[in-house]
């Protein structure tokens, strides 16, 4: 069978999103019947990289392609993929996810999943030195992002979610990826944004109070509050959608301009970084 091999970079993190977007677009755009993801060089996998890779594999499978992968050479990365549930999701007969105290397994969900929320809260409650407010904040971020992915992405593949706590860094990362309609495409259905060409501007607008595509009822509060609460707790919200990438950091907003010839991210990825230690 004719195949294409996609060699993934050393780091599957949100910082490496341009490279990862290019690789995923190559996999999705390839005319070959089989796509092989080569993870042998991969040394670090963050929730963003894992959810993006998973969404790409599912999109390839849905498009009738067969997918395979070379596992990472690094033993830590290899066991991470098993423990987080990647093998269980994509490998027939793959090992079941191990419920660790620092991670919440990779899942492909549709709609709001109370059991996943409970799992995450259990991890948070068991090990993290969060205040009750911070715990509720994690809960809020998850519910809002699940609601958004369900309401706006219009994807029959659902969304991928995964969470990881880094005890030494004192951070918790949550990532959501769907390969449905991106934020810019959805916002351009509104008359006021129809002619806006810059996807970064549209992503920023999506986080503003009251901006929504819902016609029957008011909306547009979810991302606004996630952004506001994260800023107040010195966290970061990064949104990657189509040709835009915007990182809402505590004191500044970083926009990554799309360069000519670069591929488009096929959907929306949302990465949240929360500080789990008291910040001064």
């Amino acid at each position: 069978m004719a195949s294409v091999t996609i060699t993934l970079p050393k780091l599957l993190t949100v910082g490496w999103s341009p490279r990862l977007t290019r690789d995923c677009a190559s996999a999705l755009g390839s005319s070959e019947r089989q796509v092989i993801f080569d993870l042998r060089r991969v040394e670090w996998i963050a929730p963003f990289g894992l959810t993006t890779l998973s969404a790409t594999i599912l999109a390839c499978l849905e498009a009738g392609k067969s997918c395979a992968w070379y596992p990472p050479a690094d033993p830590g990365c290899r066991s991470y993929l098993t423990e987080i549930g990647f093998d269980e999701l994509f490998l027939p007969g793959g090992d079941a996810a191990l419920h660790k105290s620092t991670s919440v397994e990779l899942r492909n969900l549709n709609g709001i999943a109370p059991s996943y929320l409970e799992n995450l809260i259990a991890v948070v409650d068991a090990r993290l030195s969060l205040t009750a407010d911070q715990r509720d904040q994690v809960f809020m971020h998850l519910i809002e992002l699940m609601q958004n992915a369900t309401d706006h992405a219009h994807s029959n593949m659902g969304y991928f979610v995964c969470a990881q706590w880094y005890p030494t860094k004192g951070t918790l990362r949550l990532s959501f990826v769907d390969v449905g309609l991106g934020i810019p495409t959805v916002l351009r259905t509104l008359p006021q944004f129809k002619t806006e060409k810059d996807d970064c501007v549209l992503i920023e607008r999506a986080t503003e109070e009251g901006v929504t595509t819902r016609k029957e009822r008011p909306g547009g509060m979810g991302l606004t509050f996630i952004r506001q609460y994260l800023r107040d707790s010195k966290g970061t919200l990064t949104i990657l959608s189509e040709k835009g990438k915007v990182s809402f950091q505590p004191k500044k907003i970083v926009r990554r301009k799309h360069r000519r010839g670069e591929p488009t991210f096929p959907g929306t990825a949302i990465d949240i970084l929360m500080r789990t230690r008291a910040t001064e």
Partner: protein
Amino acid sequence: MIDKAYINVKAVCGTGKVTRDDGAVINQLVRAALETHDSVELDFDHVRIASVSFLDEAIGVIALETDLSELKSKIDVTNIGSFDRRLLEDILTSRARQARRTASEGGRLPPRVRVATAPRARKRSRARK
């Protein structure tokens, strides 16, 4: 004597569901209760909500059409966690601000029309002076 209705969020929505659709159900109940009563007690029964969509749909959107202080005097929120109470306050403040902004935009006078003149005509009129 104030005639007060009572709605128990836990009884209506259960403990594990706090979606926007659940919020819409509460919204309908609150609106219906306020038509027949002076005020309504919304008892959260210590259920964790932590959902902007739910709280906005249930109560927040009412602040778009009702004065905030009047709304607060009519809806008595009880047995709610501290995070949820703060979140609800933030949502109500945000919606009230949005309502004020919409009202001020609607009431603003249109900008004064400025009639354009051809550059040549302007030059000529300056030259005459």
